[in-house]
C-alpha cells in the first residue's frame, strides 16, 4: 500500500512541529517565536486537510444500506 503524498507531508510537518520549538526557538521569548511557528503550523495543517477533502467525490453513489442494524455481518 502506497503512502499518499498528503499523509507523508503531514508526518514531516508533525516532526517539525515537535522539533523546531524545542531545538530552534527555545530561547526566543517573543510572539515571533514558538507562538508564530505553531500558528503557521495550524494553518498549513488546515490547508492540507481541507484541500484533500475538497477532492472527495461526494456524488459517487453510496453502497447499499444494511437491512437492519447489525443485520449483515462481514
Amino acid at each position, binding site marked *: 500500500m502506497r503512502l499518499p503524498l498528503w499523509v507523508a507531508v503531514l508526518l514531516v510537518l508533525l516532526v517539525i512541529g515537535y522539533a523546531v520549538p524545542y531545538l530552534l*526557538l527555545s530561547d526566543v521569548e*517573543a510572539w515571533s517565536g514558538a507562538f508564530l511557528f*505553531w500558528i503557521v503550523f495550524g494553518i498549513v495543517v488546515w490547508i492540507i486537510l481541507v484541500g484533500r477533502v475538497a477532492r472527495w467525490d461526494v456524488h459517487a453513489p453510496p*453502497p447499499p444500506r444494511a437491512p437492519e442494524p*447489525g443485520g449483515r455481518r462481514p
Partner: protein
Amino acid sequence: MSATLIWAAIAFYAVAGLVVVALARRRLATGAEDFYLAGRHVGGLVSAASYAATTYSAFMMLGLAGLTYRGGVGALGFELIYFAGLALLLIFGPRIWLVGRRYGFITPSEMLGARYGSPLLAGLVAVLSCAFLVPYSSVQLLGIGYLLSGTTGGGITVETGIVLGAALAAVWTIGAGLRSVAWTDALQAIVILVTAIAALFFIIDALGGWGTFLERIEAERGPWLAQPGPGFFSFWTFVGLTLPWFFFAISNPQVSQRLFTTEDLGAMRTMIIGTLTFGLVFTLISILWGFSALLVVPELDNPDLATPSLLAGGNVPAVIAVPLVIGILAAAITTVDSIALTLASMVGRDVYPRAEPGSGDRRELLVGKVVILLVIAAAAFFASLRLDLISLLSVASSAALLVIVPTIIGAFFWRRGTATGALASILAGTATVLVLQFTGVRIAALPNPVISFAVAIAVFVGVSLVTRPPADRGAGFIDGIRDDLRRMRVD
C-alpha cells in the same frame, strides 16, 4: 457576577434546551438505530457543529486556558498537535461510515467485534470505555462546578454546579437520543464561539488594546512564549500529553461513533471542514484568553480558575460574560451527554445481550436509558470527590483509551490482525496504564502513554502473528470497501 443573574441565564438555557429536545422528540422513530445514530440521517451543518462541540469541550476555555496560564505557549502546540490528529478523520471517517452503512453497526465496539469475529472483544472495548470515560465525564461536571462557583464568588457551590450539569445532561440524552444531543450541541457551539470571541476583545480592550497586550506579555511573561517556558512543558511531558490526544478522533468512541451518523459523504466532508475551522479559531481564542489571564489575574494558585476569575473581574460586560458562562456550561454538558449516549449504546448492544441472550430492540433501548442515568450519576459522584487539575485528568482518560488504537488501525489496514491479538493488546496495554499510574514507576524519562502504547502495539502484532486470523482475514473491512473508496476518491 451575581448568582441570581447566572441562575436566570441557566433557567433560560434550560428552557431553550427543553424546546430543542421536544422538537427533536417529534422526529424520533422507534429502534436503537434511530435513538443512537439519528437514523444515520444527520446533515453536514448539524454534524459539524455537533462534532466540534463534542470534541472541543469545556476543556478549551477552562483546562486549555489554565494550561496556558501554567505552562505558556506549549499549550498552543499541544492543542495544535491534536488538531493535526483530525487528519485521522480523512482516513478512518469514510471507512467507518462505509462499514457502518454496509453492515449496520451502531457502536464502535460492535464494529471491532464483528471485524475480528469476537463478541468478547466488543464487550471488552465497551467495558473499558465505560471505565475510562466516566472519569473524563466527571472532569467536565467538575468544570461546571468550578465555573459557576468561581464566577459567582461561591454564590453557587461547586456541588450545586455538578448536580445541575448532571441533571441537564440526563434530560438532553434521554429526551431524543442523538437527535436531542446533536441539536443542543449545535446550539451550544454557536453560542460559545461568538461569546468567547467577544469576551476576548473586551478583555484585551481593558488591558489597553492589542499592542499593549502583546508588549506586556513579552515584557512581563517572556518565558511563557518559549519552550519549555516556565518549566511545565518539558519535552517528554509535551510528548506524553500530545500522543493520546493525537489519536483522540479514533480512540474515543463518543466521537468515532459520530462517523456512523452522517447522511452521506458530502455531510462528512462538511463535518470535517467545519470542525477544522471551528477548532483552529477556538484554539487561538482559548490560548489568547489564557495569556490575558496572566496579566489580569496574575497570582492564582489553581490555573483552572483562570477563566472564572477573568469573568468575575468585571472587565467583560454581563451581556457577554453571562452567555459565555452558559456556553462553557453547555460545552461541558454536551461532552457528558455524548459520552453517556455512546456508553449506553455500547453496554446495551455489546455487553447486555451477552448476559441476556435474545433480548430485543426495546429491551436494549431500556437498558441503554438506565445506563445513561448510571453513567451520569457515577460521573457526578466522582466529580464531587474534587480530583485535582482538570486538564491532566482529561488527558489521563485519553491515554487509557489509546491502547485500543492498534486494534482499530489493524481492523482496516492489517489482514493478519487477530481477535486474540486484539484482546491481548488491549488487556496488556490497560494493565500497563494502571500499573504505571498507581505505582508511580517511571521507565527512563519516557511518559506513561508512550510506554503503554508501545506495549499495546507490540502485543497486538506479536500475538496476531502466532494466532489464527479470522477466516475472511478482514475482507469486508479492507477489500470489501476498496472500490467504494476509489470511486469516492478517498485515500
